[in-house]
């Protein structure tokens, strides 16, 4: 590599998404993301979905560079087609394993895919038997660190929300219904709205359910409680 050649690896992200919050419930997983892609601290692109449906069993959400995730969608689609050659639908565990290998390999080359990925889905344990399917959440960071969890908040949400979500989880655990799980997510979103400067108040909740498949969310808005402004900073 010549000193005069352009740099051929990613040094920093450009247009980015922020936190992803996901939570397992009895028969599936719910995922919450806001609908803004930021250019630094500027809220540049609105009405952007940060969730991608892979197939009827798997949903993937991202934080980090938007362009990298867009490229990743093509890679994922190629994997989906590869599995279709064997009459199989790729499951969340397999996709998570594959993306882990991919992101880790890229980080080792010092050219990372600048995303934090949340792979959410329902893993089929026995063919054509929905009774035995289990919900799955797998996380992969841009350094290729990967793990499975029952609930997660990424980005700034990791600092703000993991404890809050954990508290709710400890109350009901695996017996959370879908409505309970969504309520937890909506409550969590408020916190990021107050504290994360690149978060937005318009969001969507997508889900993967053993019985319904993947259902992407509709846009929803939340206002939040800003009454603190009156005591805080000379707000009239």
């Amino acid at each position, binding site marked *: 590599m010549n000193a005069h050649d352009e740099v051929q690896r990613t040094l920093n992200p450009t247009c980015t998404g922020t936190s992803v919050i996901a939570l397992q419930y009895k028969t599936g997983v719910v995922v919450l993301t806001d609908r803004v892609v930021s250019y630094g601290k500027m809220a540049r692109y609105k009405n952007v979905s940060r969730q991608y449906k892979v197939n009827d069993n798997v949903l993937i959400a991202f934080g980090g560079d938007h362009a990298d995730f867009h490229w990743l969608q093509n890679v994922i689609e190629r994997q989906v087609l590869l599995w279709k050659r*064997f009459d199989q639908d790729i499951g969340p565990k397999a996709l*998570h*394993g594959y993306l882990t*290998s991919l992101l880790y390999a890229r980080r080792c080359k010092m050219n990372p895919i600048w995303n934090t990925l949340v792979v959410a889905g329902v893993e089929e344990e026995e063919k054509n038997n929905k009774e035995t399917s289990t919900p799955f959440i797998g996380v992969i960071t841009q350094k290729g660190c990967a793990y499975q969890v029952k609930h997660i908040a990424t980005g700034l949400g990791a600092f703000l929300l993991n404890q809050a979500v954990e508290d709710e989880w400890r109350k009901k655990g695996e017996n959370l219904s879908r409505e309970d799980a969504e309520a937890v997510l909506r409550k969590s979103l408020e916190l990021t709205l107050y504290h994360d400067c690149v978060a937005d108040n318009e969001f969507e909740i997508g889900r993967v359910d053993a019985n319904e498949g993947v259902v992407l969310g509709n846009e929803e808005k939340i206002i939040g409680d800003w009454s603190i402004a009156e005591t805080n900073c000379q707000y009239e």
Partner: protein
Amino acid sequence: MFRNQYDSDVTVWSPQGRLHQVEYAVEAMKQGSATVGIKSETHAVIVALKVDDFFFSITLFFQRAQNELSSHQKKIYEIDTHSGVSIAGLLSDGRILARFLQTECSSWRWDYKQPVPIKKLAESMQLKLQANTQYYGRRPFGVGILIAGYDKDGAHIIQTDPSAEVVSMHGTSIGARSQSARTYLERNVDKFEKSSPEELIVHALLALRDTLPAEENLSAQNTSIGIVGKDSPFNLLDDAQVAVHLNQVSTHPRTTAGAQGGAEPMQM
């Protein structure tokens, strides 16, 4: 088949539209000692005749000598916890293919953290075998392989041969005098689906026994059994473990003697 001017390398078609080199490779498979594979709803079984000899003259007519000094050749290989293969033909070629399948299984697991679908193994074999039938300077593998496996789609027996035909089977046999075994399988095919693993092994051994000439018999030294299935990782049986199943087989009288063919259906 006789030598002709179109059989010198694999890239030459004959005027009849045949690839003679590929057909000769299939002959090599047919000279190998027999192996049988059968599947039920829940299990897949492969059994193989191991021979304790070596080729001392590689001519068009392979000659074998029974040799008390040599051990029996390994014919069945574990590929992964959910699959195994048995080989018939040039065993050295077979070992290369078995190792190839092992690396396919292991590299799939690296990426996807789960066992490879058997269909994917079949596809990989197909591509690897076909490549050697289409490029100048390469020769087809002189071996047929039976892949036994269990995955989300159930039990599988896949037959491959040097022509790169890769076919899924309910039950099959390849190698010397395998037609007798196939006849047994055809006669009993309706029984396999619901067979228990033990019954399946007995069927496979009975089919394998039919490939032997009258004076020879299955023994714990010359027979290998591989079985894989639901909740049952691939298990390779040799020697003493085989003897247990052979005892079951000996209760069934032999009504065929190799070359004579034509067996009465076995009463199970």
